[in-house]
């Protein structure tokens, strides 16, 4: 096996990234100011910080400042080595060799070796959230303390993309912890901050890890990779699940950062002295999917009629109070896999066409149950407007409103009783590629096809997204999968939601991202 395809800093990739930072490799970030307690107001309250087994954004907001992975996504969502300094792919695409960053120690003082990496991967294979990405792995080994090798059953060009997903990262922990069951681990990582205190439903306190060894290939923070520094002494994540209370805490200065400012509060907060608002333009995809098992949405023409009837601008305006972009795609504009294939079916707003399709499909006024929740305003408002639009097109649309866990469980488990489910794709849309499409493919099949194999055209395209030898091939396959999604209505994207984050004006270095990053952030005295 000859060595090829090094994913190493110092290549053109890194040079391009360095150029984007406007710095040389020697210009590593240093904290302009050190000290203080940075306080973050969180929307969600995590019950655990076991990052390998948790899917929620609330956990990532905290845990990704404590843990690191071999490879993660950068600012542009490209796979980027983090705990690995160098990643080499064999010519036949069957094995990946990871050279570990040198001198790294865990928060308990233990030096990190490949044995810890192997144990962490073994654990992820057993209890990890996205352990399905490991099904293509034949074996792994640690030939020496600095090297970790993964061998696949068959070549999978998108393997590093899958492995680097930041929605369910394979974070590295000490081997002694890696043998523990889900939620039972001590929170010991390699990141710039270590866990000091965790009081569920109250707060999490992180403190600077003095022995942290950052990566030196990038000059600064990029995604959750790069040259990370803990500028503040401590970070306190306060769980303020009530939105109004969280905004009030930002206003009074009790917190420095809040992750999500609702549209209704933006104007008021923008006028408050000492508060700044930062926007992440493409934060999430407002999306929904039909139930192919339940009549009448088991009928293609009925599904197509629903899609034809929708006015996405009206829906997104109501859902987001005007903070949105129309987007005929399952990806964010400007990203690697972005395509408008099938987009002519998006935002048709064509009641006549919808009626014609209903007639063609023999629709007989059967109820179309829109399953939603009032707990998430965007989803609920989307459902309300969609109901009105469907009714205007002659569809007997009815709402079924549950609390979020019940609505989600119903959509996952039940094949009857609902016809359309509303959700958001944030992390999965941002990751791109196969990660975005995976839920619509077998075995997930969230749209509940009657044949468990699912839509053959979609599945064929998805396989190519996973296995295409080049990014161009995979992007073309993605476009095909998206076209099938629109034509056969596996899902309906409504539009892109932005996310506005609020900070106090004495906070410097903070950049909004899909999850909260407290590295390279400092407080002005």
């Amino acid at each position, binding site marked *: 096996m000859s060595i090829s395809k090094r994913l190493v800093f110092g290549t053109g990739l890194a040079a391009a990234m360095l150029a984007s930072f406007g710095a040389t490799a020697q210009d590593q970030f240093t904290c302009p100011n050190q000290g203080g307690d940075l306080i973050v107001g969180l929307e969600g309250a995590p019950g655990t910080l076991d990052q390998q087994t948790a899917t929620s954004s609330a956990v990532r907001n905290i845990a990704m400042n404590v843990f690191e992975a071999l490879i993660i996504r950068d600012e542009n969502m490209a796979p980027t080595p983090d705990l690995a300094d160098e990643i080499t792919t064999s010519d036949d695409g069957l094995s990946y060799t990871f050279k570990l960053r040198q001198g790294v120690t865990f928060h308990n003082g233990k030096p990190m070796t490949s044995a810890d990496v192997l144990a962490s991967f073994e654990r992820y294979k057993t209890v990890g959230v996205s352990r399905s990405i490991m099904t293509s792995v034949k074996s792994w080994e640690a030939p020496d303390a600095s090297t970790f090798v993964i061998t696949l059953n068959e070549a999978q060009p998108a393997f590093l993309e899958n492995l680097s997903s930041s929605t369910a990262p394979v974070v590295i922990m000490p081997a002694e912890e890696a043998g523990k069951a889900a939620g039972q681990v001590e929170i010991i990582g390699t990141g710039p901050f270590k866990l000091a205190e965790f009081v569920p*439903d109250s707060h999490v306190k992180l403190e600077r890890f003095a022995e942290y060894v950052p990566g030196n290939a990038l000059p600064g923070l990029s995604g959750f990779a790069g040259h990370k520094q803990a500028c503040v002494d401590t970070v306190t994540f306060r769980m303020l699940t009530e939105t109004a*209370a969280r905004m009030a805490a930002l206003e*009074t200065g009790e917190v420095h950062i809040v992750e999500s400012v609702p549209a209704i509060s933006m104007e008021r907060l923008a006028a408050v002295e000492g508060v700044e608002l930062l926007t992440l333009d493409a934060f999430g995809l407002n999306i929904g999917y039909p139930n192919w098992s339940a009549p009448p949405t088991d009928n293609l023409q009925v599904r197509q009629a629903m899609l034809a009837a929708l006015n996405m601008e009206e829906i997104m305006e109501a859902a987001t109070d005007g903070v949105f972009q129309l987007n005929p795609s399952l990806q964010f504009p400007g990203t690697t896999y972005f395509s408008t294939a099938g987009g002519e079916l998006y935002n048709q707003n064509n009641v006549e066409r919808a009626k014609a399709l209903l007639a063609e499909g023999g629709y007989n006024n059967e109820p179309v149950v829109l399953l939603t929740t009032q707990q998430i305003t965007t989803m609920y408002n989307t459902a309300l407007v969609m109901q009105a639009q469907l009714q205007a097109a002659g569809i007997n649309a009815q709402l079924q409103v549950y609390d979020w866990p019940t609505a989600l469980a119903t959509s996952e488990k039940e094949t009857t009783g609902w016809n359309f489910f509303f959700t958001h794709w944030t992390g999965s849309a941002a990751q791109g590629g196969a990660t975005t499409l995976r839920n619509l493919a077998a075995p997930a099949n969230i749209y509940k096809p009657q044949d468990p194999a699912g839509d053959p055209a979609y599945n064929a395209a998805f396989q190519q997204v996973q296995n295409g030898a080049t990014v161009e091939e995979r992007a073309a396959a993605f476009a095909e999968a998206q076209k099938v999604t629109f034509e056969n209505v596996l899902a309906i994207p409504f539009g892109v939601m932005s996310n506005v984050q609020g900070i106090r004006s004495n906070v410097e270095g903070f950049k909004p991202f899909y999850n909260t990053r407290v590295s390279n952030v400092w407080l002005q005295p």
Partner: protein
Amino acid sequence: MISFVVSRLLQAIPILILVSLIAFGIIYLIPGDAAVVIGGPSATPEELEQIRRNLGLDQPLHVQIATFYINLFKGDLGRSLTLGIPVMDALIARSPITIGIAIYSLVLTIVIGLSTGMLAALNHNRWIDQAATLFALLGVSLPNFWLSLVMIVLFSVMLGWLPTGGYIPFTQDPIGWLRTTTLPAAALALLQAGLLTRITRSTLLEVLNQDYIRTARAKGLSEWIVVGRHALANVMMPVVTMVGLVLSVLLSGSIVIESIFGIPGIGSLLGSAISNRDYPMIQGGLLFVTTALLLLNIVIDLLYTALDPRVRVKGR
């Protein structure tokens, strides 16, 4: 007295049996497959089976019920799926927080409710009476969720007197504890204070019309002594009765209030458990809170008996 306590404990048994059956049945009452909810979309069929085994759902129903009650008698409420620690440990650890706020709230309720009710009764049909009645009406009408947010805006944002939320343990900083618990306690108290105002007002008005009060006034006793010594004791009866109800409402209201103010008490623990479908915690929490309230109400009844000699005589 002992026979009274035994009798009340025996009366509590059917209630506990009913609540425990409901607690057991929660896994079946909530829509969806518990194993799927816990395992998530990535779970393989084998993993779902393992989850069902862990929860005991693979056993016949009569075995599940027997296991549930055997564990219950051992004090084993299971292990939290979210926190990964025994349910009982989590509940006991958080109890002092919620109890502390509940007691603070109860004190506020009694002080505000009693004083406002007495003022209203003693100034019957004057503006003070009407103001107190309005206060009582607002207290029972305004949802404490909304009231909490208004209080945050007023006392935290506009006046800057109190923090918007969070919790500082009393043992760590008593003043900090007072500052962080005043708004949540007040939000919980105002509803109950409104109720107590009305009950105090109507009871005192009734008592003040009694012959022995007229006699006391005729004897030339000051109004303070008439009200304080002769009337108040009889007003306390319904107040004591209300305390049990008030504490029940305070504990149940803590689910919302603790979530708003970010307080890590039993209320937020149960709220999170419901959101996360942490079935052992929901079951254990329901049993824990119900048992605590039943015992509390027995204590209230004992207090009532101690205060009212007529009940003691009737009880013989």
